[in-house]
């Protein structure tokens, strides 16, 4: 039977210095998968900033594992001790958890599902890896649809964007004023832009005060992170701008320490002010929420992994079932031929009736053995049952 082999490393096992040695872009990942697929093997290479994993489906699992380890060790000689090796059900279960975001640094992050999809598309795929990757994508999608694991923000920048969405709905076409341009404020602005908002002004110490006041009356979101020792915007200045806004809401995000925005701004009607502490507390809370949801997600993944295990195990008995059915069909056809010569010529409707009745008898007789063999396969007795059926019914003896 074809086996599934997984060799890889991730943020759980290797620090960034090791992971970057084996990190591959799409083209390199595709090329590596194609190289390892030589000899009829199926191979998928999943490489992200947190993990590089090789999935292989091969008859010779030992050789496949050896080749995968060698391929990764060739990229980074020091990475070998940090490699994990899994096979069959364990490998599939791991992939399902990865696709569901349960193995990610931030539980439930959604990007990994797209990365698994791309790896699947770029891999050298056959029936087994195609099945396991499709089912993993299904499990990942189900987890995202049926749990709230991916709905809450996992960083200060995404929390700021989520809060702006709570005020405005879609951020498409909304405008942003950046006061200062620190790393965190850039991330927040990037997050808002990815949701359709636009930066209208990046103000620094040289920007004229009138220009900032003018923008304040027009923009929807203000992100502040300057190095100024005191307040950059006070409540009276914002109140002045609010008069020109005709009731439109204004979201202000203060990422600076010491703070750039007067806390009294939060008291003004239509102003929603968040500082770095507010955002960090929201992230801590949502991460704990994600961990709670992860329990439900684990249950979904376990069910999907069990379904895959049953399907994979049934492959042990599929040839025996096919032979048994072919043998039964052969006997049925032969007996019908004999009956036709004994009963004389049958008209078309009589022939169809006899065909249907005999086919039904065969199907009913074989139904229970088929089900039992599949059940036995899931319980690891499949090979024994398959051999017994072959022996009892003399399957394959003619070929010998």
């Amino acid at each position, binding site marked *: 039977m074809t086996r599934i082999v997984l060799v890889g490393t991730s943020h759980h096992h290797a620090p960034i210095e090791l992971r970057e040695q084996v990190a591959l872009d799409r083209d390199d990942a595709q090329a590596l998968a194609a190289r390892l697929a030589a000899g009829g093997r199926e191979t998928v290479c999943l490489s992200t900033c947190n993990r590089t994993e090789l999935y292989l489906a091969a008859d010779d699992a030992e050789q496949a594992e050896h080749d995968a380890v060698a391929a990764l060790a060739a990229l980074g000689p020091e990475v070998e001790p940090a490699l994990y090796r899994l096979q069959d059900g364990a490998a599939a279960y791991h992939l399902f958890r990865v696709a569901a975001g349960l193995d990610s640094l931030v539980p439930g992050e959604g990007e990994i599902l797209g990365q698994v999809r791309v790896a699947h598309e770029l891999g050298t795929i056959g029936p087994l890896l195609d099945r396991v990757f499709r089912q993993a994508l299904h499990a990942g999608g189900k987890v995202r649809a049926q749990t*709230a694991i991916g709905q809450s923000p996992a960083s200060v920048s995404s929390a700021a964007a989520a809060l702006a969405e709570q005020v405005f709905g879609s951020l498409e076409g909304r405008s942003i004023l950046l006061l200062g341009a620190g790393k965190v404020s850039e991330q927040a602005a990037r997050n808002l832009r990815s949701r359709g908002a636009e930066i209208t002004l990046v103000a620094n110490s040289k920007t004229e005060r009138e220009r900032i006041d003018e923008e304040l009356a027009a923009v929807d979101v203000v992100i502040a992170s300057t190095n100024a020792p005191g307040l950059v915007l006070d409540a009276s200045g914002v109140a002045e701008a609010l008069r020109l806004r005709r009731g439109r809401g204004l979201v202000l995000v203060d990422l600076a320490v010491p703070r750039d925005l007067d806390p009294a701004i939060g008291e003004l009607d239509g102003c929603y002010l968040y500082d770095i502490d507010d955002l960090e507390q929201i992230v801590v809370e949502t991460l704990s929420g994600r961990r709670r949801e992860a329990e439900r997600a684990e249950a979904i993944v376990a069910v999907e992994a069990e379904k895959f295990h049953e399907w994979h195990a049934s492959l042990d008995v599929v040839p025996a079932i096919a032979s048994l059915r072919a043998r039964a069909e052969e006997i049925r056809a032969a007996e019908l031929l004999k009956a036709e010569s004994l009963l004389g010529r049958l008209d078309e409707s009589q022939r169809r009736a006899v065909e249907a009745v005999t086919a039904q008898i065969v199907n009913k007789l074989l139904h229970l053995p088929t089900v039992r063999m599949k059940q036995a396969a899931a319980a690891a007795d499949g090979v024994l049952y398959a051999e017994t059926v072959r022996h009892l019914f003399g399957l394959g003896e003619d070929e010998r």
Partner: protein
Amino acid sequence: MAELLFWPALLLYGEAAVGYLGDVRRPGRAGRVATWGVRLGWLAQTALLAFQATRDDGFPWGTWASSLSLFVWLVVSAYLIWGCRRPYRLLGLVVMPLAFALLVAARVGGGTGNGSVSHYSNLFLVVHVGLVLAAFAGFTLAAALSGLYIWQERRLRTRPATILRRQMPALATLDSLALRTVAWSVPLLTLGAAVGLVRLVVRGERLDALIAVTVATWLVWCLYLGLRLLGGWTGRRAAYLALAGFALVVVVRLALPATHFA
């Protein structure tokens, strides 16, 4: 038959109210079960109204209690347009306990039983009672949306760490939905009330307290529309005005009907 349809409707509305309460504590399954309660309860009440209409050879809204039952059905119908969407589940916490309580009140008043043939013509009932009740259902929903706006706005300003735990509609969405709902409801009330007033004048009958408060209600909602569309009112101020308008709807629906239906 009416009994067989009333009790499932009432129990399912009650189940939905409890389910939405559970959804506040832990969003998820309780909210989904509650939403199904609303859907199935609405179907049962629809069947109840249809049965009453067949039995009475006309629409069952000729009395205060039966019109209250119809009002509940209209409110739940309007809620179902958005209520099935996850961010709007919290709206159910306002709407469903109200629907449950009003259906009980309608039952106590005899409006959900087999009923009797109304002495009003069907055309008058459809145009006057039907339109006024549809408008009131719209105002109820607009008030619920406004209440949700005020609650969510307060949370956004007080900045609790749990603010993003629950999926909620954006403030801008709630504000705009409330306005659209009122913009549909005011013309319905205008038409329905005008028909009633014409009939009053033609028959030479006198104004009663309910008619006076209905006119006041109409004025408040017209003011709401005017201030929003011409005065640039948005957000919290508009939401409070909607709640004031709804308070008058409650008075019209619950406190004064005896003077009118008698």
